[in-house]
């Protein structure tokens, strides 16, 4: 059976309740099409991770999908603090999630260790700080301190992470799942390769030949990929270099809506539960904000060229 399928099918088949998910996207390329589908399918008790989490994680937390969060940071960036996250931690709405905190150096390295099949990785940060005094569900397995066997200096070891599933959004992939990404990378490549299964959401499916015209852009090879879903505009309101810019107006709309639990629920009703899929969402976006606004976000792009730096 082929790997190309709808996002609904990919999430339905490969994301189970209680799974550990890596969700790619560092301000850029958040896989929102899949995030919305996870919320629609009411997945529960997920453990989720990424460096610098943002509105996508905030939404999953607010929608009640998340049990545990291996975190480094979460905010809405320009728009301020992540309000669903804060409501969860401060007031237990919709429920209190468990968090385990690392940093934007240690977490990518822990994912790299997972991808490389190593049990742990030495890290040079976190030493001496209160980050080491707190732990929740990982308990004593959050980190270990040893004396380096080579020079005796104190070294922290952090455990490798091996998510069950990684969901990433990239510019293009072929039907077998060779996934090509360009622009700011964050921890996407390592998070994807650390996982047992990868769901690739992409702006466009291209031929294997097109992939071959610039193979250095491939961050995940086909054999790791279980599903490929074509979702144009799939990372909105984040940006996808070469396809569309970040949507500040919509980002602000989310920030305003999510500042109260009621506003957040209404937002979900309109933009997630009320939509069948991403095509419906895009249509709704155009109806609500106008085609000119949609067009304004789009990059100047030559579809015939395999790689574009336009944004």
């Amino acid at each position, binding site marked *: 059976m082929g790997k190309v399928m709808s996002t609904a099918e990919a999430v339905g088949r490969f994301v189970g309740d209680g799974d550990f998910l890596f969700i790619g996207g560092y301000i850029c390329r958040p896989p929102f099409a899949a995030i919305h589908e996870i919320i629609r399918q009411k997945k529960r008790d997920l453990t989720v991770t990424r460096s610098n989490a943002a509105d996508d994680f905030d939404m999953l937390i607010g929608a009640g999908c998340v049990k545990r969060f291996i975190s*480094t940071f979460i905010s809405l960036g320009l728009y301020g603090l992540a309000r669903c996250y804060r409501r969860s931690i*401060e007031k237990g709405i919709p429920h209190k999630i468990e968090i385990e*905190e690392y940093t*934007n*150096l240690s977490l990518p390295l822990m994912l790299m260790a997972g991808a490389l099949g190593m049990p742990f990785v030495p890290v040079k940060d*976190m*030493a*001496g700080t209160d980050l080491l005094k707190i732990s929740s569900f990982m308990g004593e397995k959050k980190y270990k301190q040893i004396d380096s066997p080579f020079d005796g200096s104190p070294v922290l070891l952090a455990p490798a992470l091996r998510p069950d599933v990684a969901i990433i959004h990239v510019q293009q992939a072929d039907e077998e799942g060779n996934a090509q990404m360009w622009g*700011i990378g964050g921890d996407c490549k390592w998070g994807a390769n650390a996982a047992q299964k990868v769901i690739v959401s992409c702006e466009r499916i291209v031929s294997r030949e097109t992939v071959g015209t610039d193979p250095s852009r491939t961050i995940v090879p086909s054999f790791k990929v279980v599903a490929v879903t074509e979702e144009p505009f799939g990372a909105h309101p984040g940006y996808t270099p070469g396809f569309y810019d970040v949507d500040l107006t919509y980002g602000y709309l989310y920030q305003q809506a999510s500042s109260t639990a009621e506003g957040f629920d209404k937002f979900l009703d309109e933009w997630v539960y009320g939509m069948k899929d991403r095509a419906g969402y895009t249509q709704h976006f155009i109806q609500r904000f106008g085609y000119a606004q949609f067009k304004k976000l789009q990059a100047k792009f030559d579809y015939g060229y395999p790689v574009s730096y336009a*944004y």
Partner: protein
Amino acid sequence: MACCGAREIRDKDLVIVGTGFPTMSANIAKHTHAPGASMMQESGVFDARPARPALSVGDPCLNPGAAMIGGLIEVMGMFLQGGWIDVGFLAGSQVDRFGNINTTVIGNYDSPKSRLPGSGGANPIGALAKRVLIIALHNTRTLAERVDFITTPGYLDGPGARERCGLPAGTGPEVIITNKAVLRFDRDSKEAYLESYHPGSSVEEVVKLTPWKLRVSEAVRETEPPRAEELRVLRKVLDPLGMIRIYEKKGYV
């Protein structure tokens, strides 16, 4: 404040910057006394040439024209942990007299008064950049004798503490630049003391707004006001959109 930050940057420094203030400081330095300085964003970009000021470290405008784009492993791993980054800028919700920074929680960790975003790249930058410049608003809420939670290490609890827990020797915060003053860290006690107060402020005001018994340098002086060239670069070259107004409104300028 942006000019004070710029003056801490030396020619040929490799600087890791966030958006807004740090970028302005690094760019003022680059356009004035430190043309050889170069910048990196933790998201993976080296030597970006954006057409407009970036709104975040992941802003797509950083892509075209950059010399290199990688990811967190490249910038935070290879370059920062690898020991190549000279200067990092940090801000925090709370900063204490040893330059420790809190961006995790106000109040108790388990039942917080206010939950903040967490470390992100701050801890590794504070741990591993050779010199760290801290930016803070000068009031008794932001500055603290002791932070509620050490997210990012300054000098921890005093001299030798960084080295004892394995952080690289000779690293640590260099200054706390506030909207009122420049505080530098005493070589022996590792405690922040008053080096200069900005025009319009005074030693008395700064001491009053600092919640620990702030020591005042014998050579305390007024901060040199922004030079004409620094202001020209800031307003005309770096900030044609007038983004500095946002910072002026927040009290940072």
